[in-house]
């Protein structure tokens, strides 16, 4: 939170984080949620695995593209030889039916696609959403009408069908992961824009923004210096929840055959190829499905935790970040409401008792 925001913080509003503790309080509130912490650790691990994919596969001594015909039983439809889908010291998670490609290598390289595309799409969605939302809220009535209707059209558009159509017509020479990220980003920014517009309209009414306007600041400067900091909390929250959604969309598109193209591995694509193998080679299906499940779950939990940590109302309702007396006191003290100090302390201790 910027100093400007903190300085002009009007009493009684709960739109922003309490004074002098922005980032610190955020971390404290996030830390207090055990599930979010675990989720954050898992996400960090996944990101690390994705980044270190070449290193990890080098340690294993495999790559995601080489065929190993000797590891599959050609006469039986290409099912991996050996137990548990051909798991050996050389192939940590077994091999792919019909090709014998290493599953561990494909899974970790697939993580790059899944996470990369999802993050890229989220960045696009947030950028467009913020620009359109702020422009609609600050622009003239006509601009607002135009942008708001456009946003509604975008929100009403069925994401999967539009992506299928767009991805089918773009020439295959265009780099596929980038294209998938762009398409998801360009189609699904509507809700971000709506949230940003509503939040901007609220912020616009506040005294500090009026003050800035009265002192002769231009719209652009107000938007940048006064409004964007106030928008950070809702946008970060929403973005955190967009990432898992985007991962599932990417997987679904690859599953339907219009996402990332072979031989580039992706989890959605592995799922498509594996869906018929659920009986003959279950691990082939379970690996990408499990990876997708863990990723989406941990990102969602983390996103939820971020929202809680950024939203003071939710934080106090959930009694998070006030668990320790010292903190509660500090909290109360900074608010400067001496009269309620005892009450706060009391309620904090009673919370501890109940939890």
């Amino acid at each position: 939170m910027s100093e400007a925001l903190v300085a002009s913080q009007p009493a009684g509003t709960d739109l922003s984080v309490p004074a002098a503790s922005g980032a610190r309080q955020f971390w404290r509130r996030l830390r207090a949620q055990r599930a979010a912490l675990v989720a954050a650790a898992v996400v960090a691990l996944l990101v690390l695995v994705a980044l270190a994919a070449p290193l990890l596969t080098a340690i294993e001594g495999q790559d995601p593209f080489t065929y190993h015909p000797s590891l599959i039983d050609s006469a039986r439809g290409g099912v991996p030889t050996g137990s548990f889908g051909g798991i050996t010291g050389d192939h940590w998670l077994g091999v792919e039916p019909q090709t014998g490609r290493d599953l561990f290598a494909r899974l970790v390289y697939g993580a790059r696609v899944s996470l990369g595309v999802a993050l890229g799409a989220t960045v696009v969605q947030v950028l467009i959403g913020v620009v359109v939302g702020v422009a609609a809220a600050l622009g003239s009535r006509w601009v607002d009408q135009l942008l708001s209707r456009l946003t509604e059209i975008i929100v009403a558009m069925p994401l999967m069908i539009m992506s299928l159509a767009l991805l089918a017509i773009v020439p295959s020479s265009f780099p596929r992961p980038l294209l998938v990220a762009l398409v998801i980003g360009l189609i699904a920014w509507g809700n971000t824009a709506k949230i940003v517009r509503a939040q901007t309209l609220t912020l616009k009414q506040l005294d500090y923004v009026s003050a800035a306007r009265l002192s002769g600041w231009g719209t652009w400067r107000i938007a940048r210096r006064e409004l964007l900091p106030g928008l950070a909390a809702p946008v970060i929250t929403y973005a955190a929840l967009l990432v898992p959604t985007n991962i599932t969309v990417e997987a679904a598109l690859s599953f339907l055959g219009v996402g990332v193209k072979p031989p580039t591995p992706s989890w959605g694509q592995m799922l498509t190829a594996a869906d018929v193998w659920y009986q003959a080679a279950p691990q082939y299906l379970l690996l990408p499905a499990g990876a997708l499940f863990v990723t989406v779950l941990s990102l969602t939990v983390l996103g939820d935790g971020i929202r809680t940590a950024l939203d003071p109302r939710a934080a106090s309702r959930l009694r998070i970040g006030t668990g320790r007396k010292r903190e509660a006191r500090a909290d109360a003290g900074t608010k400067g409401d001496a009269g309620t100090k005892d009450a706060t302390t009391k309620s904090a201790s009673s919370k501890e008792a109940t939890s």
Partner: protein
Amino acid sequence: MRIPEHPPREVVIPMRQPSVIARRVAVASVSLAVAAGAAACGPKDNDAKGSSGDSTPHKGGTLTVLNSNPQEDFDPARLYTSGGGNVPSLVFRTLTTRNRENGAAGAKVVPDLATDTGRPNKDATVWTYTLKKGLKYEDGTAITSADIKYGIERSFAPELSGGAPYLRDWLVGAADYQGPYKDKKGLSAIETPDSRTIVFHLDKPEGEFPYLATQTQFTPVPQGKDTGTKYEQHPISSGPYKVVSNQNDGETLVLERNKYWSTATDSERKAYPDKIDVKSGLDSSVINQRLSSSQGADATAVTTDTNLGPAELAKVTGDKELAARVGTGHFGYTNYIAFNPTVAPFDNVKVRQAISYAVDRSSVVNAAGGSSLAEAATTFLPNQKSFGYDPYDLFPAGASGNAAKAKELLKEAGYPKGITVTLTHSNDKDFETSPEIATAIQDALKKAGITVKLQGLEINDYKDKIHSVKTEPGFFLAHWGADWPSGGPFLAPIFDGRQIVKDGANFNTGLLNDKSVNAEIDAINKLTNLDEAAKRWGALDKKIGEQALTVPLFHPVYKRLVGKDIKNVVISDWTGVLDISQVAVK
């Protein structure tokens, strides 16, 4: 099957299972591939035995047919079949038909309504047939040669389109004929001097006319009963069964015995069950699951358009009881890499040869489903005697490719550092022209210093591109299936220079226009001894192969699962599908 735009001589037979969703998305491809279940033939010995111990087939009972594609067009004029189809062949008899035997014997053409497979004149331009005595429709009226003529004529009506293009191409003066509804005079190329004789006049020698006469367009249709486009709701049966009910445009069909049909005039169809219950619109995985569990009526069920995919095969082969219920089928079909020699660097024969040497057929076969579902191909013609198969291997790549030889050829071609090329394929999930095969080739060519970029196209886009001279890519995956088991419909459309179509659907993708090849095609077409013709087709295939315009990859093999109480499983090499006219349930 019905082909919308081009005259597609590609016989679409039921393919491996695409995943449910992939298939639903590729709606277009599915609608195209409404195959009129290719059928099979021949009784006697079989690889699948009924579990009851007594394997002698008996009459009676109800046979259930579980299919994915509905019998949408049940009009003999509109069906595009190989050898008369499977379900259609229970209702429609034709002048000739396929021999209902297992394996290679089933690739022979035999008489059906006619007393023989046809009597040609000296240069095979006039074919005469005589009908057997005592032939009757389901209403007891006699079948006449005029009805067969009328049946063929109505297949020329634009509203009843869908059949193969051969009749229009071959019959004298038929090119612009619009069918009997518009042109009452009829086709003068077909004569019926009496009620049992029919004579066909062709504008060029066609020794393979007996094969054509197996197609459903040669079914008798009584003019008085013709209801035009509504005829498919109740076509008049000449075969062992008649249509009792047809719901949802062929999705559920009930066939019962036609009491006027007799084994005295039909030695091919066995017709053991009393009733045939066809249920279609099912997903292929559902069909195989139902057949394997064989609960209730599914114990006496078969399918005529679904085979086992690699994953299902892996499961089935692990279970002895199930494995005993699998029949194996072959069909004249080749999957290959096609080159467009007008596109660099494929204009250089050495580059084409290098790729021929570099291909790893074992990994391609694995990608296609493994050695039980595909056989490596080094010839363009299918590996069957009836096609004149000559097992040549002009660019021996061994099982896994000869990268050294390929590099040497590339060097000679002026590419000592290797080349980068783009392989065009479809995004269909058919394990034939699909990404799985393309990536296997990509991996193999890498070893020979050939970097392959993949260009995957949506199936209709892919078909349009490869079949247009203007847009044809240089290097792509293709496949070809036979309309009947002979070299003619296999080699002529692909390599006859006079069949290059500049504006429209072109199948001669190698753009080969070699006078000696064209002349040999004409010479073979004059032969009426089909065995002799087959040998010549085989030799011609080898001669064309020297130009390396294609790299044959594999011939598919089909594994067909049947219900546990099914007896007398017959699968011919003509169709590769179990023949339901031979199946018994008791």
